[in-house]
């Protein structure tokens, strides 16, 4: 009986994922309404619940894809993978006001460059404080503080050690998870409530998953503006970290 049910869930993995997300969402909105009196938004709870389940999945299965490594939740990995995420992000652009975008184009581009530099040097400073002295490791960890893709791309380009590359991914993951969780809470304090601020936010943070999750829980209307700048960030980071930024670090150490 149980085996037949499990096989049914595994054989229809994406459909199981739809059901799973539906149940998580329902529970989250219930918690939001009844336990927080609607103060914490349902989608913020759903994302946090997703992260907790990802942690549990990692403990249980020991893989790298959180809950998605458990066979019956394999579809969650597909639904939540980069392909569907990016497809849905593109769809959010439908209905974007072209005027807002044109007005904030320059500042969007500026915030991407500033964002990469800011994140990189904070990461590099922390690496130095924790005792790293070779320029390759410092650069790789700094790059990981940009995003968890910029870290390994830079580390591989500079032939950093596997440990340091893994560490750079961990830094990027922490950043992305924190942005997902914290954004809805700090949004009112920093006036993250309009398209211009959302474009600056996307450019400074740069982590597509963090920005996608953070804005979804703050105000879904802002998603396309933040996502737009964030999707250029990883490319800019991969361009700058192993070249200009590495040279600067190399001069200092």
């Amino acid at each position, binding site marked *: 009986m149980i085996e037949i049910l499990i096989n049914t869930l595994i054989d229809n993995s994406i459909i199981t994922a*739809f059901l799973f*997300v*539906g149940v998580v969402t329902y529970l989250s909105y219930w918690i939001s309404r009844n336990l927080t009196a609607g103060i914490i938004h349902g*989608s913020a709870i*759903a*994302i946090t*619940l*997703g*992260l907790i389940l*990802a*942690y549990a*999945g990692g403990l249980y299965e020991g893989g790298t894809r*959180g809950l998605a490594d458990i066979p019956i*939740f394999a579809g*969650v990995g597909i639904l*939540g*993978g980069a392909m*569907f995420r990016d*497809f*849905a*992000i*593109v*769809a959010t652009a*439908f*209905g*974007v006001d072209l005027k807002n975008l044109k007005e904030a184009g320059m*500042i969007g581009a*500026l915030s991407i460059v*500033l964002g990469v530099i*800011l*994140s990189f040097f*904070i990461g590099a400073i922390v690496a130095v*404080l*924790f005792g790293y002295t070779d320029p390759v490791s410092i650069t790789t960890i700094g790059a990981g*503080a940009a995003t968890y893709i910029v870290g390994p*791309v830079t580390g591989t380009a500079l032939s950093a050690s596997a440990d340091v590359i893994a*560490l750079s991914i*961990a*830094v990027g*993951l922490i*950043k992305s998870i*924190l942005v997902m969780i*914290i954004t809805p809470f*700090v949004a009112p304090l*920093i*006036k993250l409530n309009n398209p*211009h601020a959302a474009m*600056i*936010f996307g450019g400074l*943070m740069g982590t597509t*998953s963090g920005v*996608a999750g953070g804005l979804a829980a703050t105000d*879904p209307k802002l*998603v*396309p503006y933040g996502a737009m700048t964030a*999707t250029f960030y*990883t*490319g*800019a980071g991969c*361009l700058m970290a192993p070249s200009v930024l590495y040279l600067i670090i190399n001069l200092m150490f």
Partner: protein
Amino acid sequence: MVIYGVALLSFCMIAGVFFGELIGYLIGIDANVGGIGIAMLLLIFIANKNSKNIKIDNITKSGINFWNAMYIPIVVAMAAKQNVLAAISGGWMAITAGVFVVILSFLAIPFLYKFVKTKES
């Protein structure tokens, strides 16, 4: 038809990702440079052209709007497949770096926003 909307969305994404890969290849880095951003710009451009020669009817729109509405559920699935264990087992250095980067980046937003507003006026 609904499929026209979904197909239009797919066209924009494939075209955008292709150009992103191409830009990455041309400047010699192993990453997609803004492919999804380009796809979004393409969709916005087509949607704004709409009124003149190409007509996107409501049923076609619903094919795009469905995926727009699926955005948050997909983000929830995305959260559930993150490598949270690796992030936490990265130790104190990873946590310290992550926390500082996020706090200081958040603090920089109002600063940059104010800078834009004063420049405009």
